């Protein structure tokens, strides 16, 4: 496969995994928690490196998974000890992120990781960092990692679909009929963490947030059905990835940044034009009411 195809494949995988997880985050009103996790994952990666001295994907996944869960847990702890939830998120993610940055600069000489890379990602280098097993070139390792994470996510969602759905729409009822709501919460948070870290290397922390939130929010304006929302969100993720790649080629700009911008444009268009929840249709509906 050519260089461009690999990049588009990577971007699309990011778009699909993030798009699907993002829907649940939006429905559960936890978008900002995802934002927090995407920042604190930096600490997880740095710690994983300091412990294992390697940049292997599996260590990163474990480190980020642990820190992601820790973030969700600390937010929960602060919230239950009386801190309002937005402030709890703000305090936890900024301090963990600050700690990560400090570690990173304290060990700057030894860590082959730089902060800009972590923030903005370097999807351009993805195709060169290939996975070879027994001398066979199996394609970029990022693709393998993203693919694995996507499959894990899909399996988990398939297994717990009903539970996740009920606890997203009606947590009180879910608790009443005996669904382990806290378990589902932390399950989702660990899915967010591993998705974030898998996407992190290719697209960076901030774009992960864009890919988590924007496609889901767009899909939310287009449909009322959860399954449809998941599919639309994944498709929008792919479209922004591919569109972003071509836009970046044309104007010679950061690929990850342009993916986020394209996603933003798609959202803006949907926000205005969506047949049911768009600005325009609302205006028209109001007008027709007035003329009647």
């Amino acid at each position: 496969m050519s260089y461009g195809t690999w990049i588009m494949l990577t971007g699309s995988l990011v778009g699909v995994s993030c798009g699907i997880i993002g829907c649940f985050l939006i429905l559960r009103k936890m978008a900002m928690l995802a934002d927090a996790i995407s920042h604190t994952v930096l600490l997880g990666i740095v710690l994983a490196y300091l412990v294992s001295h390697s940049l292997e994907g599996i260590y990163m996944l474990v480190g980020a998974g642990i820190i992601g869960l820790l973030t969700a847990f600390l937010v929960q702890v602060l919230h239950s000890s009386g801190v309002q939830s937005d402030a709890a998120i703000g305090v936890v993610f900024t301090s963990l992120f600050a700690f990560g940055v400090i570690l990173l600069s304290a060990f700057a000489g030894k860590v082959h990781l730089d902060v800009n890379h972590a923030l903005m990602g370097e999807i351009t280098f993805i195709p060169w960092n290939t996975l070879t097993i027994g001398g066979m070139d199996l394609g970029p390792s990022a693709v393998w990692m993203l693919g694995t994470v996507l499959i894990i996510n899909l399996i988990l969602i398939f297994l717990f679909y009903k539970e996740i759905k009920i606890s997203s729409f009606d947590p009180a009822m879910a608790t009443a009929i005996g669904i382990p709501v806290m378990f589902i919460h932390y399950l989702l948070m660990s899915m967010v963490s591993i998705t974030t870290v898998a996407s992190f290397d290719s697209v960076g922390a901030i774009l992960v947030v864009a890919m988590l939130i924007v496609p889901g929010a767009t899909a939310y304006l287009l449909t009322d059905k959860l399954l449809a929302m998941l599919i639309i969100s994944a498709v929008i993720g792919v479209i922004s990835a591919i569109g972003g790649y071509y836009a970046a080629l044309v104007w010679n700009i950061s690929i990850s940044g342009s993916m986020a911008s394209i996603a933003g444009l798609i959202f803006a268009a949907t926000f205005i034009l969506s047949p049911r929840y768009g600005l325009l249709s609302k205006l028209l509906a109001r007008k027709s009411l007035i003329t009647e």
Partner: protein
Amino acid sequence: MFNDLILTLQDANTQWVLFGTILLGVASGVLGSFALLRKQSLIGDAMAHAALPGICLAFLLYGTKSIGWFLVGAALSGLLATYFIQVIINHSRIKEDTAIGLVLSVFFGFGIVLLTKIAQSENGNQSGLDDFIFGQAASLVGNDVRVISGVAVVLLIVTWLLFKELKLFTFDRQFAQGIGLPTGLLNGLLMALIVSAVVIGLQAVGVILMAAMLITPAISARYWTDRLDRMVIVAGTIGALSGMLGTLLSSMANRLPTGPVIVLSATVIFLISLIFAPNRGLVSKGLKLYRIRKIVARETVLQTMYDLSEEASITNKKLLFSKEELLTRRKMAVRKLDSNLKRLEKEGYVQRKEDLWYLTESGGYEAHEIVLNNRLFEIYTMYEMKFASLQFATNDVWDYKHIGSSTLHELEQLMAVHERTPKLEPKYFGEGETLRKKKSSQRAEKRKKEVKSL
């Protein structure tokens, strides 16, 4: 260590930076308090991220690095982002947190696009722009600090002048509107103030961590006081303190970046507040809880003894009870029951005959009071609407002695209707004998007294 500190303080550059970060801490602490109380802390985060494209655009248009134009660009795009967030919340079914995350990430992504564009352009002298992402307090020069402190002072003065209006607007927007305050204007003004605080902080602590400067000092201050004026002062002080600590620590340990160290100092202050603050802190809350549990356990034991005595007196059994009986009536840890019985024995309220326990006469009085109080409370909760005039809040301590006599009478009547009146009078407690025996012995005593007086 101390010499290091002196040396650091003598450095002119450090003095500038110190001055800048302290003023920044004060301004962001003060404005963060308002954002926090309006539950909009994370909007500050969005503003900070959204400032990036503004800074880049200012650079593209103006051509070189200029703090003044950067501030203007950052403020404009920050305000635009806030406006978008409001529009999305007001005109679609998307909730606040999603709207914030969406605008934040798209603006930041666009900022990165612009940043790469600048890097390739002719005058790609963009080294100063990268600083805005993580902040580079050490690179602050006299001119930057002058701008930062000028803006900070203006922000503080505006807040001081409009304090009453902002306070009213923060706590009760409807009321503020009702008495004719221009709430739309105030909202815009507050947003503009917060954006300005964010913007002047960008160079020192960076886009990502600026949110902490707004949130952490404010939430720490919230633990120390319930009054807005004091909270604002405390938050400003904490902001200044963390700015100072962060700057000094990072300039003494060479490799540490200032912004994150400032944020971590603020976090440490927050943790101290969270744990040790009077009234709201975890330690004092824990102590309070411990005290209440102790009182409740003691009351529970007395009440259980009374309940059992009441039942036993009907069938004329002895008023003596084993620990097992107490435990089956009301579940409780055995050790807790033991310690409470021991304490009550010391107080003279209960006594034991071998393995059986009974209420003494003074214990009877105490238990009767507790049971009466609790049963009246039960009746109150049954007829809560009827007694709404009591204005009893959830966390108030219920004490029937503070209730007016007519209401109390009503409650007592209802208690009689439900057959919950404590039937066993305290004077019938004593040695744990049966009610009949006690009554007859009391009668005998009475007769003896009468005979004597005759």
